[in-house]
């Protein structure tokens, strides 16, 4: 296991990129921006063939058998690769890092494989900062034009699950053309929660209302996050509520 774990101080030249299902089909621009960001940092990106989903939708809904089928396949594919596994979505990374531990707790043989994969998984911004290869900062240069006001939305599984709170903010703050604006109750959940958003639409919608009000009041032009689920929920919610804010992946702002 120790061999498979990239030491933070050893720069990784090559990574496996797991685009995730939502990024692949709904937010391909986030995946493309992530790959370009990694490559600009001098990292070779591979995409293992046939990757689909981490199994989280079924797992969060309580469908353990279905979650196992999907997660087992994905982990199996990833286990055949080497090097860090970079995921552009916090909750999918958390699924592989933490939730699979619970999902496969009764299967010691497979759990060992899942753990070896989990040890290699990094969320995109976490990886970039760990590698000390943040994209070239341009903070020193005086901005030529008005900066874009950005609200960072810390998605729950990235912040509370993986404990990644600083990396995305540091990366955004290093960009001279961006101005990070504070948001009231920023760490409060946006109300997505996977199947929760469609099974409990009233509660999810009430949480979304609050988040939209806070984002609007922040004066931001863009809300950026590192989770495709939250982004789709926020983008669709803001559009429904007539807000002009744009939602995009943090990687898209670092390009």
């Amino acid at each position, binding site marked *: 296991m120790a061999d498979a774990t990239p030491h933070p101080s050893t720069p990784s030249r090559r990574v496996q990129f797991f*685009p995730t*299902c939502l*990024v*692949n*089909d*709904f*937010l*391909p621009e986030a*995946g*493309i921006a992530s790959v370009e960001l990694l490559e600009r940092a001098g990292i070779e990106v591979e995409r293992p063939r*046939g*990757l*689909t*989903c981490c*199994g989280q*939708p*079924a*797992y*969060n*809904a*309580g*469908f*353990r*058998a*279905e979650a196992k*089928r*999907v997660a087992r*396949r994905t982990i199996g594919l990833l286990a055949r690769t080497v090097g860090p596994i970079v995921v552009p979505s916090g909750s999918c990374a958390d699924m592989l890092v933490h*939730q699979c531990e*619970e999902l496969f707790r009764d299967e010691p043989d497979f759990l060992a494989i899942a753990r070896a994969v989990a040890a290699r998984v990094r969320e995109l911004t976490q990886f970039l900062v760990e590698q000390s290869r943040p994209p070239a900062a341009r903070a020193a240069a005086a901005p030529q034009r008005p900066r874009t006001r950005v609200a960072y939305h810390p998605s*729950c*599984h990235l912040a*509370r*699950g993986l404990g990644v709170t600083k990396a995305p903010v540091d990366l955004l703050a290093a960009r001279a053309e961006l101005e990070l604006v504070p948001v009231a109750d920023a760490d*409060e*959940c946006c*109300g*997505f*929660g*996977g199947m*929760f*958003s*469609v*099974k*409990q*639409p*009233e*509660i*999810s*919608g*009430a*949480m*979304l209302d*609050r988040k939209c009000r806070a984002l609007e009041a922040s004066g931001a032009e863009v809300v950026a996050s590192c989770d495709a689920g939250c982004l*789709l929920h926020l*983008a*669709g*919610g803001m*559009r*429904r509520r007539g807000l002009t804010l744009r939602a995009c992946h943090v990687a898209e702002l670092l390009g």
Partner: protein
Amino acid sequence: MSAPPPALPPFAERVRAAVGDAHLHEAIDRATGQLQARRGAAFASLEAADLVRDHARAAKLEVLARLDTMLEQFEANARANGIAVHWARDAEEAQRLVVEIARAAGCRRAVKAKSMVTEEIHLNAALEAAGIRVVETDLGEYVVQLRADRPSHIILPIIHLTKEDVGRTMEEKLAVPYTSAPQELCALARERLRAEFLEADLGISGGNFAIVESGSLGLVSNEGNIRMVTTLPRVHVALVGIEKLVPTLVDWERMVQVLARSATGQKITVYTTLVNGPRRVPPAGTPAGRIVDEGPEQVHVILLDHGRSATLAGDEAEILACIRCGACLNVCPVFRNIGGHAYGDTYPGPMGAVLTPSLRGLPGWEELPQASSLCGACRDVCPVRIDLPRMLLSLRAKGVERGPVGLVPRLFMKAYAFLATRPRLLRLAMKLARACARRRARDGWVERTPGLPGLLRGWTEQRDFKVPAARTFDDWWERRRGSA
């Protein structure tokens, strides 16, 4: 007893009513906002707070690991202190025990401390049916009783009310002039309750902690009412869940430190009480009339199971480490939007969404573990670090295994697992989904449309649906590789 009261409307209706209740949100936001800020400050003042929390967690887990022997030790030590210890398997047994104790001692007027476990077993109704008058003495619970309402938070029973609501309640029920000034409202309650304390012959409390090593009960309050409930009446009965044990007095001290901080943002509660038994009999030769000890003549502890042993044996045993501080309610975005009553039973919020189905059984309560976005704020704030999201998930899994999950979600998940393990088919299916979505879309988004199938309806009820991309990430990747 295990089924929800028949009068309870379905969960979705309770949620809908609460989500649309602006008054409720105003009241809850005001209180939880203050509590969160105070909690943060209180923990900042605690040296090695993380270690104290670890210690508190370890003490509770130790109790759960050896609950049977710990209970026997507590019983023996409490008896040695002169406390009568009783065991109640369920709510009915507990109710009957309290009524029997009251009858045997000739008690007719009870004063009560705030206690969620007595709410859990609907003790007040049972006492009144037995002809025993019972008055709640916690200010919030007193208002609840005046309104014939239910508490909506385990620490702040009337978090759903504003001070204006309380003023109107007192005006109506106590025939006093209206005021919304908190000090005047407190003075009114104090005056009424003082008379009740002096006339009561039975004091009923819960027990925040039952300390094994000393056989004593630990109680906390801020209003002083618990001191009076446990000392003024002739008889004191404490109802205590069997999970409330802590091994030692040192553990108890640490527990109080994290409980007060988590519950109300205090370093310590205004009144922190240890009950060590009834008043002692004067030694032989004591001059008549000299007071050697005070307090009740009898102290009874009723140790209640009511679903706890069954919970201990399952995946949700960890919830029994809960010390009822309420911090998880205050940070929960779901609780803050739907309030406590929507949860339908005694315990609301994240801890309630796990505890209620655990104690009462999942049937009838399957919706509670669904009412969470799994954001994890509860786990972070919990003073004993209970992994609430893990148990919300295990209860969801149980619901799928045994519960009435509809055919549509089952088929959807089957289809999902089928496609997500077959990338080529998934690709085709997504192209098809895109074609269908596009027909209903405007500018690339499906807006609120009546007659959409289940999942899409749930989504578009609150937000627009983004049409899947024409060119996926995989398309881009393959094209780039092809041209490279």
